């Protein structure tokens, strides 16, 4: 063993050039795989629930009609389910997502927070790193005991002091005592980000004091306050299917405690927790699993191409070492011994390459995480990224596995071939092709098949990359329908400071007013949502002309509309045109008790009122306002349609209402400058900040960004670009490997065929003939490989179709350019060996001493 290893080392040291190229080839192949694997392991595979994750499910409730109108649970329902669900659930916990302001005065950071019931931690199976988690008393509705559990990441950011537990932090303007620190990596069920703080349910009312998105319900004990997500640990031994069969009884019980004004019977559903979203309806992690599988598949293809490449190098080396091997066989070494020796050399190469690859992969993933971190941080909410891409034992093991796979792939075949040699022939070492093989079989010699496979697979990767690049280009070039250049977006969140609602309202309008008066400002307005922002809010609406169905089993007839409350001038401020009708009046934006008015875009107008003028028509929500306000809005204006998202075409139909119609603490101040010059826009930021401060020093300015920057930071865009980048890297590596492979094989073939070339020249072939001889074979092989590659590409396209952005999976542009690029590269790789072939000196080639 040791001797084999030592010998292998010596063999590699003897040909450092070969060893270097082989190692780099392997490093690329293995590096890509371990990078992707680390990524997938961190985000998709790593169990989020530390204790017996297969027992944990999310609980959902939907109305028993086809609209599947999901909502969260009230605290009463939670209690009911806890008490009566013991047939199914060993434990049931409630959690609620929140954004809070941590810190005081001018140093407020907005952070992700989770409010949970006391048993959440024990249900998940974690213990505090330091201190304690909160108790039942602290979680009782309206207990208002101000205690907080810090996440590990938050503690680290706060300076990881020993006296952190017991200290106070300021949350939404109130002091909270830190009672404990959650263990490292614990993030509830989210695979990507961890909240900064964990809070007991008992502070719910206080935390949401002045505002919540939609209503005035702050009291957890209020039976219509549906705000809790539920997570359960099923009784051990119970399968999800079995648990599901017992849900109807429990649902019946929950239905029986519904308050008056009951909205119809609901059922209960359970599903394994989503790793990427918190929602009140079951979410499918399928697309992400698909992406992960695709990435891993593509990476595997890269490793395969690298292995094929290396196998060819070893085949060529095997021929040059044939004499040595024949000699050793003649001296009595068993074939197995020599195969083992060759495999050892392969494994040594693979491990050296793998180590190099691991370093590359770490570096790449660091870059990726950095980019993700920067992107998410720009959303101006703080949290800890918990994707840990540093190599753990698992990733190391898998990387080693990749090395083993590569070794078998690339060195077993050549080792067997090399030891199958004809003793007598090799001792004589007659160079040249084995006799009588025929042109056909030479065209399909293993090394050529391998090269053709490399070309075909590389084409597939390049084509995939092409599809993603096309998508990224389209996304960048997409006309969003609004004008981002020259815009500045300021986010204000009054829930983070202690301001009563009327005061906050007054300050909001004052801010708009002051901004509008600034020289250089064309228009300014407030809105509750920002296009391309990462949070959306939608409501379903329908034309008043159609009747609301009375049968609860009928699907919701409404159209989903992105719901934005604005002040006058908003459309000017984001560069959207008012096509017909009018903008909101200032009075409508300030005063809730005016007639309800709405503005829609022309797409929505066409959808709701296909044959009539939308302006003057009435619409209503399919879910009437809970506060009993009249459910009737007059459309007063129609604006040009514009996008809300890079990714999603269906999310583009908006409904605008005057700001006064909603109670919101979180608003965006849009300011449009006379200039579109980015530098001028950036230079305007301090001015705007100073003006806002001058209104009230406590104005909760979360961020001021050029509108254009926000677009660039859109998660949708990032995903598309990262997709293009990842697949582009795969494609580039595969292209590089294929070119190296073609070159190596052709150069080797020319060397082996020098006698033949000499003969042909002696028989009358000119340089051009010889050049054509080599190129023709290369071109034929390339053409065949490209044809196969096109076929593979189209198959890959079918799989990719689900995650492509705005590109047909058979996009001819991507297909043609990838094919051309690859064919050109392959022919270029043939060109140099072919040119070398024309320089063969027939006399030298024919000399046979």
């Amino acid at each position, binding site marked *: 063993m040791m001797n084999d290893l030592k010998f292998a080392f010596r063999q590699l040291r003897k040909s450092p050039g070969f060893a270097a190229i082989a190692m780099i080839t392997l490093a690329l192949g293995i590096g890509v795989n371990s990078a992707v694997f680390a990524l997938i392991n961190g985000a998709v595979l790593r169990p989020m629930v530390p204790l017996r994750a297969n027992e944990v499910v999310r609980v959902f409730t939907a109305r028993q009609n086809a609209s599947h109108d999901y909502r969260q649970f009230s605290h009463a329902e939670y209690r009911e389910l806890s008490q009566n669900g013991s047939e199914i659930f060993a434990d049931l916990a409630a959690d609620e997502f929140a954004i809070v302001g941590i810190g005081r005065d001018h140093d407020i950071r907005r952070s992700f927070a989770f409010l949970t019931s006391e048993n959440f931690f024990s249900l998940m199976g974690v213990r505090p790193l330091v201190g304690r988690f909160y108790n039942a008393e602290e979680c009782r509705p309206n207990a208002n005991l101000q205690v907080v559990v810090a996440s590990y990441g938050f503690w680290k950011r706060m300076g990881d002091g020993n006296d952190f537990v017991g200290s106070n932090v300021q949350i939404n303007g109130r002091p909270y005592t830190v009672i404990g620190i959650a263990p490292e990596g614990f993030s509830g069920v989210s695979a990507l980000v961890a909240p900064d703080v964990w809070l007991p349910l008992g502070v719910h009312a206080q935390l949401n004091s002045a505002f919540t998105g939609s209503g005035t319900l702050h009291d957890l004990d209020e039976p219509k306050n549906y705000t809790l997500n539920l997570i359960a640990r099923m009784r051990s031994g119970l399968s999800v299917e079995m648990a599901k069969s017992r849900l109807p009884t429990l649902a019946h019980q929950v239905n029986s405690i519904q308050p008056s004004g009951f909205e119809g019977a609901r059922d209960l559903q359970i599903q394994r927790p989503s790793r990427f979203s918190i929602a009140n309806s079951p979410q499918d992690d399928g697309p992400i699993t698909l992406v992960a599988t695709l990435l891993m598949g593509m990476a595997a293809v890269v490793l395969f191409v690298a292995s094929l490449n290396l196998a060819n190098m070893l085949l060529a080396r095997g021929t040059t070492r044939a004499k040595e091997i024949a000699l050793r066989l003649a001296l009595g070494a068993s074939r197995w011994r020599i195969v083992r020796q060759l495999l050892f050399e392969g494994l040594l190469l693979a491990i050296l390459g793998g180590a190099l690859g691991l370093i590359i992969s770490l570096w790449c993933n660091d870059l990726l995480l950095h980019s993700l971190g920067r992107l998410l941080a720009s959303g101006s909410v703080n949290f800890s990224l918990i994707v840990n891409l540093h190599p753990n034992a698992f990733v190391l093991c898998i990387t080693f596995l990749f090395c083993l796979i590569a070794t078998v792939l690339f060195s077993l075949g050549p080792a067997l071939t090399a030891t199958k040699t004809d003793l007598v022939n090799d001792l004589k070492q007659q160079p*040249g*092709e*084995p*006799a*009588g*093989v*025929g*042109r056909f*079989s*030479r065209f399909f010699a293993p090394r050529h098949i391998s090269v053709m496979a490399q070309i075909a697979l590389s084409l597939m990767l390049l084509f995939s990359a092409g599809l993603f690049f096309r998508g990224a280009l389209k996304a960048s070039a997409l006309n969003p329908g609004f004008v981002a250049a020259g815009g500045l977006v300021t986010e204000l969140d009054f829930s983070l400071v202690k301001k009563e609602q009327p005061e906050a309202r007054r300050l909001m309008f004052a801010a708009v007013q002051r901004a509008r008066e600034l020289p250089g400002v064309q228009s300014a307005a407030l809105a509750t949502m920002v296009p391309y922002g990462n949070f959306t809010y939608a409501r379903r609406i329908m034309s008043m002309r159609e009747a609301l169905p009375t049968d609860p089993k009928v699907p919701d007839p409404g159209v989903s509309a992105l719901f934005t409350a604005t002040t006058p001038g908003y459309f000017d401020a984001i560069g959207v045109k008012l096509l017909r009708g009018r903008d909101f009046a200032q009075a409508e934006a300030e005063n809730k008790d005016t007639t309800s008015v709405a503005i829609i875009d022309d797409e929505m107008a066409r959808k709701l009122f296909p044959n009539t003028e939308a302006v003057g028509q009435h619409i209503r929500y399919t879910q009437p306002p809970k506060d009993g306000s009249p459910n009737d809005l007059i459309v007063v204006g129609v604006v040009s349609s514009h996008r809300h998202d890079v990714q999603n075409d269906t999310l583009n139909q908006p409904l605008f209402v005057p700001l006064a119609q909603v109670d919101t603490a979180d608003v965006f101040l849009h300011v449009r400058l006379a200039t579109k010059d980015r530098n001028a826009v950036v230079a305007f930021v301090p001015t705007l900040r100073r003006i806002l401060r001058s209104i009230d020093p406590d104005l909760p300015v979360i961020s001021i960004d050029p509108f254009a920057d926000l677009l660039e930071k859109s998660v949708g865009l990032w995903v598309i670009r990262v997709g293009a980048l990842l697949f582009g890297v795969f494609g580039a590596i595969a292209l590089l490997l294929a070119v190296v492979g073609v070159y190596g094989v052709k150069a080797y073939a020319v060397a082996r065929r020098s*006698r*033949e070339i000499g*003969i*042909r*020249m*002696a*028989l*009358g*072939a*000119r340089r051009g*003939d010889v050049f054509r001889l080599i190129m023709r074979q290369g071109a034929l092989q390339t053409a065949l490989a490209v044809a196969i590659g096109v076929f593979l590409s189209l198959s890959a396209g079918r799989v990719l179709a689900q995650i492509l952005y705005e590109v047909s999976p058979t996009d001819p542009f991507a297909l043609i350019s990838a094919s051309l690029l690859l064919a050109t590269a392959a022919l270029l790789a043939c060109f140099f060996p072919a040119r070398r072939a024309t320089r063969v000196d*027939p*006399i030298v080639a*024919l000399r*046979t001493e």
Partner: protein
Amino acid sequence: MIKLRRLERRYPLGKEKFFYVLRDINLDIEEGEFVSVMGPSGAGKSTLLHILGMHDSGWAGEYFLAETAVHHLKPKERATLRNEQIGFVFQQYHLLDDLTVYENLDIPLSYRRYSKGERAALVADMLDRFQIVGKKDLYPSQLSGGQQQLVGVARAIIAEPKLLLADEPTGNLHSSQGEEIMELFRKLNDEGMTIVQVTHSEKNASYGKRIIQLRDGWLVRENR
């Protein structure tokens, strides 16, 4: 047919020093002659033949082939001239191992201006003439040495050269096989082809009408 004047071939041997393989060769060969070149190993016989066959161009002096001054020709013109005039037979046959007999015969035609039909006709003729029709689909490794050299000769003359150059054509053959080849040469010569062969055997040389002796690069004696 061939006229050499002060022909010289040398290889550099370090700085400013040269190794002379051929020196001051003056030689005239008439059309229709059958000449044998003899001499010890290393005398420069093969070198001379490769120069005549225009495989080598690193020589100095004058070389006229059928009144054309080869020494003044550009490489392309030389190649054209060679393809029109010369056929070459090798000691090691140098058939292409992964081509059939038929395909081997076709190689020289593929590098000359022949139509597809002409090529097929010429190959068929040649197979007939050498009585190897039955072997046309075999690979060289499936033939005996004599048969291989037969194919080698057929391939050399298929493009109807005026001059046939043969470097020890029987060197690797049994004497009986060698005789067959020599008889063939005689027949070709009788039909008017000029032949220059290298040989070690007096007997083979006797098929020719004239013997040239080479020694250390010098043309030492001519027996007519």
